[in-house]
């Protein structure tokens, strides 16, 4: 027998097939607890690779001989070593060739809507819990909140025979590096973001606040920009055809965006309150909310995308019904937890203030997403 190597897409296809998948993650316990591959049908076991260096049968005691074991580590080296050890002992072993490094850069597009005149894709960067969107109509495409691996979007647009004409960020991202500017440079499309997000920025952009409605395609695809401050002062949401709300980091399936990343948690929490009870409250219950992040795989619905109706979100999140301003502020400003790793540096990159190499960008982005707050 020989060990089989697997890339991120092959691993995802396996997970997506619904069959039980056994992952043996051989990174150290802290790294594993901080960030790991999760899925509804995944059984995950953590045994650090260095525990396999001693000939000790108890290390293997929880591993079945009759099922495929997929070994995962940070970059692939340790996983290969462990997979080979398992193989020698008669286990069925394969390994993720470039480890969590590759997993962090894997994107999976899902069709959310296909209305004939308009197609809406959610592009899920699983490892980061980052969601971006492509709206296509009659050969033209709009991309919302693109991540930095811009070829994911250009190849998807190509597949749909569409030219990318509009690119927007709902806000200045703090947890991942935006692909907005790079994608605009590559495609010639316009890049939009709120001016208030870009103070001191060293890049050109189209001020989003000057556009209350953007249309593209021969068919009417209406996009309203709704200022929804709270997570950041210049956050906006896009309402597409009165039906789909791309809510950025303002509203999630499982809660609201954290207001503390600017060092003014209480103040921004007030804006979030206004947004929730004076703007979002006016929208109909049945619009479909599509956020820029998710924190838990439970947020992926039965159709395979992360989203829920506004009514469902109201029902399942008490914070959406907490109309007492003080209680609301206390809740959203008080329960935010660990900040996204390297967020200050990432914000500077997204403003064009500093530039980094691709390797450095990968390193800065590694780890889970921490933009959502869970209100218990």
């Amino acid at each position: 027998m020989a060990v089989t190597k697997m890339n991120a897409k092959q691993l995802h296809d396996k997970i997506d097939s619904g069959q039980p998948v056994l992952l043996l993650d051989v990174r150290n316990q802290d790294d594993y607890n901080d960030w790991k591959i999760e899925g509804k049908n995944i059984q995950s076991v953590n045994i650090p690779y260095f525990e396999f260096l001693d000939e000790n049968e108890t290390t293997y005691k929880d591993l079945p001989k009759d099922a495929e074991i997929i070994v995962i580590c940070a970059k692939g080296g340790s996983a290969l070593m462990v997979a080979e050890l398992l193989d020698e002992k008669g286990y069925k072993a394969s390994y993720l060739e470039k480890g969590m490094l590759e997993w962090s850069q894997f994107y999976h597009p899902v069709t959310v809507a296909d209305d004939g005149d308009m197609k809406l894709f959610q592009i899920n960067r699983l490892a980061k819990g980052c969601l971006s969107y492509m709206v296509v109509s009659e050969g033209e495409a709009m991309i919302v909140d693109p991540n930095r691996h811009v070829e994911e979007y250009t190849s998807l647009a190509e597949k749909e025979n569409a030219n990318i004409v509009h690119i927007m960020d709902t806000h200045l991202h703090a947890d991942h590096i935006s692909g907005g500017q790079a994608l605009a440079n590559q495609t010639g499309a316009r890049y939009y973001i709120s001016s208030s997000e870009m103070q001191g920025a060293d890049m050109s952009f189209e001020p989003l606040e000057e556009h209350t409605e953007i249309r593209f395609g021969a068919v009417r695809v209406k996009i309203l920009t709704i200022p929804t401050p709270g997570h950041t002062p210049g956050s906006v949401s896009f309402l597409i055809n009165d039906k789909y709300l791309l809510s950025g980091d303002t509203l999630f399936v499982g809660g609201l965006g954290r207001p503390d990343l600017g060092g003014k948690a209480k103040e921004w929490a007030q804006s979030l309150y206004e947004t929730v009870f004076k703007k979002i409250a006016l929208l109909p219950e049945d619009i479909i909310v599509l956020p820029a992040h998710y924190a838990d795989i439970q947020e992926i619905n039965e159709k395979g995308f992360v989203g829920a109706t506004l009514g469902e979100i109201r029902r399942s999140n008490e914070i959406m019904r907490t109309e007492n301003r003080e209680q609301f502020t206390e809740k959203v400003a008080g329960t935010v937890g660990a900040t996204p790793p390297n967020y200050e540096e990432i914000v500077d990159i997204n403003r064009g203030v500093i530039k980094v190499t691709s390797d450095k960008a990968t390193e800065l982005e590694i780890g889970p997403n921490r933009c959502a707050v869970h209100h218990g």
Partner: protein
Amino acid sequence: MNGDKVLDAKGLSCPMPVVRAKKAMDELKSGQVLELHTTDSGATNDIPAWAKTAGHLVKEQSEENGVYKFWIQKG
């Protein structure tokens, strides 16, 4: 701090720094100190985690110009 043995694992990537460190440690007596040099940033978490599992003690660690140094006392 001086080690009883110095292991240069610079340029090696995971899992080799830990694999080499384990081999070097096997040749030391309890209480002796291994000085390990590595350029693998993953080692900053892995070396202490391995040492803890194996019952060794990281007495000191440092980083200078991308070289991580560990002084590990055999348990």
